[in-house]
């Protein structure tokens, strides 16, 4: 936007801070439950009890019990911890990988750029869920497989956006001016590139975590993810589905927890993009 001709203050870009704060509050709620439930209502998520089969909530488990009499409170908290942990690990590693390769590709240009873009496009052609599925068939430990598979899926978006942002910035006068003034690559990264990349990382991180949680649950739900008796959101749903008539609330619990977590993440992501 040129300076001379703006005859009035431009309307500020639409920001939705309320969305981000609502999202953050929902996530805080989920996180607090996942971390505090084992302290307040200590129970083994794997311990079965004939007396408690599909039992109503009590003081020891405010969320009730499942079809094997296991504490749903303990199982839900454990399932959330698992999903959130894998998601966080996958987001961190994919961000690191994607930003590093993206900056390298934009900075070096030439064949480095072309090769990196081609590899990213090849990964892009494989639907993410299939990639995770195949990796889970290669790596025997499922959480590790999820982490690797999700990293391979999520790094592409980081790469593409970082590469686009960095090439734009490197071609702009700001970086050229800093180079003429004698500043080196580290300064240019810290002062020019990082401040523009950081907000994007948060948005992508929230979207990426949502993708990760969805995939883990989806694979659990169709029985190719975590194995029983591990508590996992999708597995819990598929296990409790047959008992829907007797204990509808037991099924609603993992469904609602998944929805609230994803909504929180989507709101955090959207608030930044608006």
């Amino acid at each position, binding site marked *: 936007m040129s300076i001379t001709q703006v005859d009035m203050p431009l309307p500020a870009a639409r920001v939705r801070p309320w969305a981000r704060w609502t999202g953050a509050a929902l996530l805080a709620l989920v996180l607090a439950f996942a971390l505090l439930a084992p302290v307040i209502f200590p129970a083994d998520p794997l311990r079965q009890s004939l007396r408690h089969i599909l039992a109503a909530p009590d003081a020891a488990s405010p969320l009730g019990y499942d079809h094997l009499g296991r504490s749903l409170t303990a199982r839900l908290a454990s399932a959330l911890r698992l999903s959130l942990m894998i998601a966080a690990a996958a987001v961190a590693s994919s961000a690191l990988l994607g930003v590093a390769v993206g900056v390298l590709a934009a900075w070096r240009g030439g064949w480095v750029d072309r090769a990196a873009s*081609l*590899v990213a*496009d*090849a*990964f*892009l*052609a*494989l*639907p*993410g*869920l*299939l*990639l995770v*599925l*195949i*990796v*889970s*068939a*290669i*790596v*025997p430990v499922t959480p590790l497989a999820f982490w690797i598979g999700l990293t391979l899926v999520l790094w592409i978006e980081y790469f593409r956006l970082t590469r686009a942002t960095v090439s734009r910035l490197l071609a702009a006068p700001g970086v050229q001016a800093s180079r003429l003034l004698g500043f080196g690559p580290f300064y240019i990264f810290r002062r020019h590139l990082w401040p523009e990349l950081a907000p994007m990382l948060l948005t992508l991180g929230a979207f990426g975590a*949502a993708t990760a949680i*969805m995939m883990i*649950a*989806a694979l659990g*739900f*169709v*029985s*190719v993810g975590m194995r029983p008796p591990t508590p996992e959101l*999708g597995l819990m*749903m598929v296990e409790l*589905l047959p008992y*829907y*008539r007797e204990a509808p609330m037991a*099924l609603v619990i993992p*469904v609602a927890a*998944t*929805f609230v977590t*994803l*909504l929180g*993440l*989507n*709101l955090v992501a*959207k608030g930044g993009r608006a």
Partner: protein
Amino acid sequence: MRPLTQAILYRASQAVLVALLVGMLTFLMMQALPGDMAFRIAAGRYGYDAVNAEAAEAVRRELGLDRPALAAFGTWLWDLMRLDFGTSVISGAPVMDEIRHQLGASLQLAGAALALSFLIGPPVGILAGLRAGGWLDRTLLVVSTALRSVPQFLMGLILIVLVSIQLGWLPAAGYGRPVHFVLPALTLALGLAAVSARVARDAMAAVAASPYYAFGRWKGLSEGQLLRRHGLRNIGVTLVTYLGLQFAMLVEGVVVIEAIFSWPGIGHALVHAIFGRDVPMVQGTVLLLGLGFVALNTAVDLTARWIDPRGRGAGEARS
């Protein structure tokens, strides 16, 4: 935008790389098969009574499990490049035949879902984008954010519980009659429509706020004339490009939804193949889907080029 030949060349190298990637992954998958897997596969094929060490050995040879890894990988890739996917280790039938059987059912489901989502998503998005900030726009924002927070398998679960179990209106699973289409297609379509509505909305809002849209108004055109002459074509590239990227989302949806609704398609088969470690089936299916993505996006490139023939960087060379 790159010249045409270069763009096609790029897609071709993407296709080769996709094949290489799939070959590598499935080879690793095969190497990771547990030791008694050959025995198990043989048992699956011939029945537990008939299986013996010889049968297991035959399977091992067939899969190349007895050779050094590097040589096996070479053969593996060679077979792949010749599009020889071998036979399913579980059913014993050629992978190509298996895929051909299942593809039809999947295409029917995907087609129905895509058509449904395109009837809902873009029209709603265009209307919302024309009045950015209006009530429809705000409602769409809330609804699409909520829908995006419901993964497709969860949408399927919710629809099964509500429509099949609670109301008993439609069958939860099955294939063959039109009623069987409703729930799986609707499940897929809702998720796709939520996103395509947002994409159409953002594109339309950008076009409606553009100087050329305002200029059209000042020229004396009515809103309907404006939308037809200057709106639809200008959001076309965005929508078509999005369609290409939507393919990945559609495939993921199809895999999960088929598994949930027991739909006898390629996704259902893939989940079974992964579960049973049927490497040739996995390879054939994933390769087909990956190359399908590349082919579709090549078509998308060409369509986008047709809609918007401008070269990239044009219009910059003015003071």
